[in-house]
């Protein structure tokens, strides 16, 4: 039971990967050389220099759901790892609820941003050459920056704010010092023990 969340997340990622692998893959699903041949392979070049994506709807229509599942399950895997290492026996129980609520909120915003990115991108298929802009980039691309790069900064903030509570509480640090002390003492004792196992000095 203890490992059930990890097994579920791993199973979800594998389901998404296999679903993608078994989906129909259209021609040029991963781009094609630029339409004008000089851009793609100028004279003297050693390979394709510039690629085009073509019709976004056509090349993505078979992986809309598995792609969404893959992205969400990957985010779930990343976040599960963060949650897993924030459990510590020395944490302050009073702030536990507050901390976990904030963590869950960041996760929900993270997943929400990814879903929004995907749906905004799909909406751009209607008028691909005239996308809505958010800042300097098309809306879905700006959501990619804000969501996939920006939202995890919430975890950075929580790491800094709750460091002494969830990551390395003072009590844990104190316990660690005692462990190091005990290990050093054990080493010293071992060194002063004769080959027959008797201590030279008490």
């Amino acid at each position: 039971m203890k490992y059930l969340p990890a097994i579920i997340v791993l199973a979800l990622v594998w389901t998404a990967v296999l679903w993608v692998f078994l989906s129909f893959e259209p021609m040029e699903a991963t781009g094609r050389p630029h339409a004008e041949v000089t851009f793609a392979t100028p004279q003297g070049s050693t390979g394709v220099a510039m690629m085009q994506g073509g019709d976004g709807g056509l090349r993505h229509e078979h992986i809309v759901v598995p792609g969404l599942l893959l992205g969400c399950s990957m985010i779930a895997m990343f976040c599960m790892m963060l949650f897993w290492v924030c459990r510590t026996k020395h944490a302050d129980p009073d702030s536990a609820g507050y901390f976990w609520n904030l963590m869950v909120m960041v996760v929900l915003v993270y997943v929400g941003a990814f879903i929004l990115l995907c749906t905004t991108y799909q909406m751009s298929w209607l008028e691909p050459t005239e996308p809505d802009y958010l800042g300097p980039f098309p809306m879905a691309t700006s959501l990619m920056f804000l969501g996939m790069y920006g939202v995890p900064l919430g975890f950075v903030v929580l790491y800094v704010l709750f460091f002494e509570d969830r990551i390395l509480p003072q009590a844990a640090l104190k316990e660690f010092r005692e462990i190091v002390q005990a290990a050093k003492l054990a080493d010293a004792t071992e060194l002063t023990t004769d080959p027959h196992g008797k201590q030279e000095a008490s």
Partner: protein
Amino acid sequence: MEEYRSGIIFGFILVYMLICMAVGLWAMRRTRSTKDFFMAGRHLGMIVTSVAVFSSTMSGFGFVGGPGLVYLAGTSSFWMVINMSIGMCIMFFLLGKRLRLFAELREPVSLPDAVSARYNSRFTGGLTAVAILLGVITYLGVQIKAMSVVLFQILQDIPWASTPLQWCYVISCAVLVFYCVTGGIIASVYTDLIQGVIMVVAAVLVLLTTMATVDGGLQGMAEVITRDDPEAMQPWGTFGMISCLSFYFIMALGVCGQPHVITKLMMTKNISDTRHMLPMSVAGYGLAALLWISIGLCMRAVVLNATHGTPLLNADQAASEFLTYYAHPVLAGVVFAGLFAAIMSTADSFLNIGSAALVHDLPQAFGMTPLKHELRWARIATVAIAVGAGLLAYYAGEMVAMLGVMGWSIFAIAIVPIVAIGFNWKRANRIAANTSVISGLACYAGLYLTDIRLPYDFHQGAFSMLITLTIFFMVALVTPANRLDKDIDAVMDL
């Protein structure tokens, strides 16, 4: 390139190399033991370590290959950059505290040393050392090659300084070896500090220059690219959704497996320093990555709107063409120094962990007694690795570049499960560790060398890492846990 531009650029690079050598000499006075040479005596400050972490993560690939990828495929390669916020979070949450605690408890001089202590198995440590050595030689070869080729191109435009390519290899190796051999990891992290600052300054200046180059700044570039190919400016770029998501996966999780990055987490003076290192490293990387994004977009836009005249022969020319035609020569000098900085900051870390694997970890794994005069041997090993990687880079040609691409993935596949997961999970045992490393590397080598393309260009490294993670987890669950040493057991509870 005009001669005066090349002269200015060369001047910046020369000054930069001299600074690196001076740092090496300064650090030599502080390097008295193996622990100093490999672990900087665990006396590093918070700012130095933070900058060293992000500058080691951003290699020469970010300065040359990154803009090239944006030129080639539009926004697809942004997924290799934006993963760093969650990637660094995973690294610091999972390893920031844990590795530092292990470092103080057992005083390891390398990552495989810590792995041996965690799993109570010299074989597992040795396996980690072999994976590290494999990645180091190939990755380092590519860094030396990139450095030599760039130096050669710059010197070619200066009649009095024109130098054959093989001499550029010698110069590159010599500078690297000089400050790594003299100052070990101390020289490496302090040059990382200089390199990190140069990278950030260069990236911000380049962003401003690109915005001034195209009418309308970033939005102007986006509009030009969208008119030509809307998909290139949408979030998945030309490679498509699945390919981008697999980049996101391997890069975000993979950063926890980069030995030249995570080893630095063991070197801080205070355990609590990791608290402020995370935001500093994320911010530093984010700023340095502006160069990757802005040059690529700018070059694609200026080629498409015919400002640039002719299309690039090779996507990797994006950065050099931009600096030649659109940047002020002083800025070009700073950026080329930044490029050398990025290459050298990664290369020196590789030299250090490679020599540790050779003189410390592998002899231990084979049950040999520790070498006498280990520090001297470490210095000799550093020279040997640099020369070996340099020769490999010079004679193996394209093969090295191909192997170099494997570097990040090799490290990620071999190290993420056994270190990032294993150091936080008591149930993880040596059978799981050994099985996952061997099977993951075998799977990746099989896919890569036979050139098997996965559907929708799902990244081979990402697929292999998923396999290795699954094997590690499942094998650990079905096999009995190893008995841990008392102190290790207690520390893993913290």
